[in-house]
């Protein structure tokens, strides 16, 4: 299969060159952008995801990547092929790709990246096991097996072969997070190569000019040796994570010192009133839902779970306390996410009468005798931080009013919350989940064979397993729909909302990155390789 590429045709390149030679020197174009995290150690996505500094996704070239319509494109990979038995994928790299120091980018740099990740405690290792299903991942990562036994190998300089434990028809999407590690530099400097501007070499559209460690602000410039798809349209991108807080970002935006900024709930009406043309919104591929321990009373009773499912007025919640911050969720899949079904989502209706009937059927008419319960959620910033507190207070009031249930709220650090969920320390959780790769298997996988919620429903597991392995897209989607229907019938979760993010964008910026896509959304915070390569700016 040949993958899309977006490199300029040779003739257009020649034309651009002749114009550049004839025209007087232009001023350097730059974009000033907010970053995401002020802390982070390595500018290397394959060393750490949760403690990465800045945007390593801008400086290294993934095998594949998504555009703003969520179409998959080959980046380093020019073509790919799945074996007959579905267990082996072969990725063919483009010829002539080089690092910023002139060294060739080879299959070995990608293979080494995963071998190192598996053997040195990569904090995103679960992804390559859970989503990638890379053969022998657990043995290497957890049992100390030799990294060379991992199911990835460089057949030659331009060919990577990946073997998975089970057929993974969606692996091309999974490898959108597979970046190379410049092995020739790592051999000399070790992991610390990615902590120093002088030793970092780039294979992507940008390279690093400077890096201020105290707040992880950095200046990225166009990589002069880059000859892959999606070259940068601007000369410099100045990224400052301290501008990522809307409270700091909006004043700087209004003073013309940053080209776009996220907005908080209080700022949205102000910006909509004063500069409506600057506002962009993006429905994040994420879902907030209520999860249960289905083996623990009172939530071991399906009628109790269904009572909660029907007692939530999602429309009212998103039009009032979560206005501009979220849209109703009827499915675990967000709207416009591949595999999303209107039919499935439409089943999540607000029906308090039906909710009370289910509660009565469970032996708790009007909530009488129902034990006090406590919902646990994680203390978090960003879009989750903006919605969780008002959402939980709303739910608390809804359940009390419609069901006579007293639900207390407990907030805790993320890691404690995750451990509590994995170790079943409570029976009720508010759980957010955001996609890692774009395929329905990502969302359905978190409930598969236990998953993170101890969700053991054989019928569901069988459908998801069949869907995961099925190479025919339509058949896969149908199987996933059946699987979600099982979840609904079982009231395994209560889908609540899909968060949205709002931004203000300067009229200096143009290009597809800041234009709404066909769904009316402008994904400005997740599709990093696409976003920064397709930003245009007036000089």
């Amino acid at each position: 299969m040949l993958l899309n590429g977006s490199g300029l045709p040779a003739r257009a390149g020649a034309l651009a060159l002749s114009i550049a030679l004839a025209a007087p020197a232009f001023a350097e174009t730059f974009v000033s952008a907010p970053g995401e995290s002020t802390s982070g150690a390595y500018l290397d996505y394959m060393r750490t995801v949760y403690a990465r500094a800045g945007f390593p996704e801008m400086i290294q070239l993934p095998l594949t990547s998504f555009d703003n319509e969520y179409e998959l494109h080959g980046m380093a990979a020019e073509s790919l092929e799945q074996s007959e038995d579905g267990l082996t994928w072969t990725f063919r790299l483009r010829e002539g790709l080089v690092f910023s120091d002139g060294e060739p980018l080879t299959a070995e740099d990608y293979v080494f990246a995963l071998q190192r990740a598996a053997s040195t405690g990569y904090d995103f290792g679960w992804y390559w096991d859970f989503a990638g299903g890379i053969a022998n991942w657990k043995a290497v990562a957890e049992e100390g097996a030799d990294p060379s036994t991992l199911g990835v190998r460089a057949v030659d300089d331009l060919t990577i072969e990946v073997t998975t434990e089970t057929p993974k028809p969606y692996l091309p999407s999974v490898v959108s997070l597979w970046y190379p590690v410049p092995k020739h530099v790592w051999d000399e400097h070790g992991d610390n190569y990615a902590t120093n501007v002088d030793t970092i070499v780039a294979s992507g559209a940008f390279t690093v000019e400077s890096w201020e460690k105290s707040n992880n602000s950095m200046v990225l410039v166009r990589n002069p040796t880059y000859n892959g798809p999606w070259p940068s349209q601007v000369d410099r991108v100045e990224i400052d994570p301290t501008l990522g807080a809307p409270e700091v970002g909006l004043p700087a935006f209004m003073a013309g010192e940053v080209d776009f900024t996220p907005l908080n709930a209080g700022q949205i009406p102000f910006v909509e009133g004063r500069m409506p043309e600057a506002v962009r919104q993006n429905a994040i591929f994420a879902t907030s839902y209520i999860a249960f321990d289905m083996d623990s009373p009172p939530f071991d009773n399906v009628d109790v779970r269904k009572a909660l499912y029907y007692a939530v007025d999602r429309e009212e919640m998103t039009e009032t306390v979560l206005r501009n911050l979220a849209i109703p969720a009827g499915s675990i899949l967000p709207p416009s996410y591949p595999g999303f079904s209107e039919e499935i989502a439409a089943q999540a209706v607000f029906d308090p009468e039906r909710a009370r009937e289910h509660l009565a059927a469970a032996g708790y008419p009007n909530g009488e005798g129902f034990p006090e319960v406590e919902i646990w959620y994680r203390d978090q910033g960003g879009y989750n931080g903006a919605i969780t507190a008002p959402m939980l207070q709303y739910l608390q009031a809804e359940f009390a009013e419609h069901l006579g249930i007293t639900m207390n709220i407990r907030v805790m650090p993320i890691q404690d919350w995750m451990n509590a969920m994995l170790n079943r320390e409570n029976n009720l959780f508010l759980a957010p989940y955001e996609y890692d790769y774009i395929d329905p298997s990502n969302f359905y996988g978190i409930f598969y064979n236990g998953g993170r919620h101890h969700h053991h429903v054989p019928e569901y597991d069988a459908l998801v397993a069949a869907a995961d392995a099925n190479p025919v897209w339509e058949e896969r989607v149908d199987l996933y729909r059946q699987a979600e229907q099982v979840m609904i019938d079982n009231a395994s979760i209560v889908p609540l909302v899909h968060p949205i993010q709002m931004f203000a964008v300067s009229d200096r910026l143009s290009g597809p990155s800041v234009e709404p896509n066909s769904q009316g959304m402008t994904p400005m915070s997740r599709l990093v390789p696409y976003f920064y390569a397709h930003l245009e700016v007036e000089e």
Partner: protein
Amino acid sequence: MLSFILRRLVSVAVTFFVVSVVIFVMMHSIPGGPFDAGDMPLPPAVRERMMAQYGLDQPLYVQYLRYMAGVLRFDFGVPFQSPGETVVSLLASAWVPSLVLGGLGVLIGAPLGILLGMAAALRRNSWVDYLASAVATLGLTVPVFVTSMLLILVFAVWLGWLPSSGWGEPRRWILPIAAYATIPMATYARYTRSAMLDTLNRPFVTVLRAKGLSERRIVFGHVLRNSALPMVTVFLPMFIGTATGSIFVEAMFRIPGLGSYFVSSIRTRDYPTEMALMLMLTVMFCLAYLISDILYAWLNPRIRTGGRRE
């Protein structure tokens, strides 16, 4: 005087030791660790390997002794959040903006506060007093991030005279220093007013007036000097406190100073940086109080003898 200084130095050493133990134990008592930041916990085997790599699998007292042995050689270890550097090099570069911000903030705010306090004391119960007291009270009660936001709104957004944030060229320093200076200004205004009122009501001032000295000589030659004692107590510790940076001012104005490390080292469980910051602060505060005590004793010899006549 020498034995007084020696006694104080011994107490500094004891304080340093006690603080280092308390901080080290507290730091490690908080649930979680440097490798628990991700959404998904690391597999136990992987986590154990990482802990062993950084020596975190050793008993706590061994970790403490190793760290403190390094501290004695001025080696504060390698920061977890920036493994390619040392803690010393990391903090050294961040200290400069914090020193500039805090130092200039105090050097500008303190004299202004003293003038404000003097004016209030000398014109007690007049509109000058009320205005000065109101300014001082506002400076102490309005959070500095609100002051910062107002300054940005007026001078950067509405008037467009100054950049809203950032560091580097001196014109970017103006707003954060102005925001920061409100704290020492307000503090000094309050201290000066009450100290001067106290001194002005003392009998020797009445005697000086009876002797026919001018108000200017009384105020600047006698009252201010006698009011200086409590101000000395405040000045150096406040200077040290500000030199370590204001987390809020640095965040609002995007200043690459120490403030961010106080937050990030705790959030990321960067033990070496966390310890280094707390130990440096401890030493600086101890020295500041030591110098204050010496100045105090010099200004008022009764203090060093505990009030006894020798």
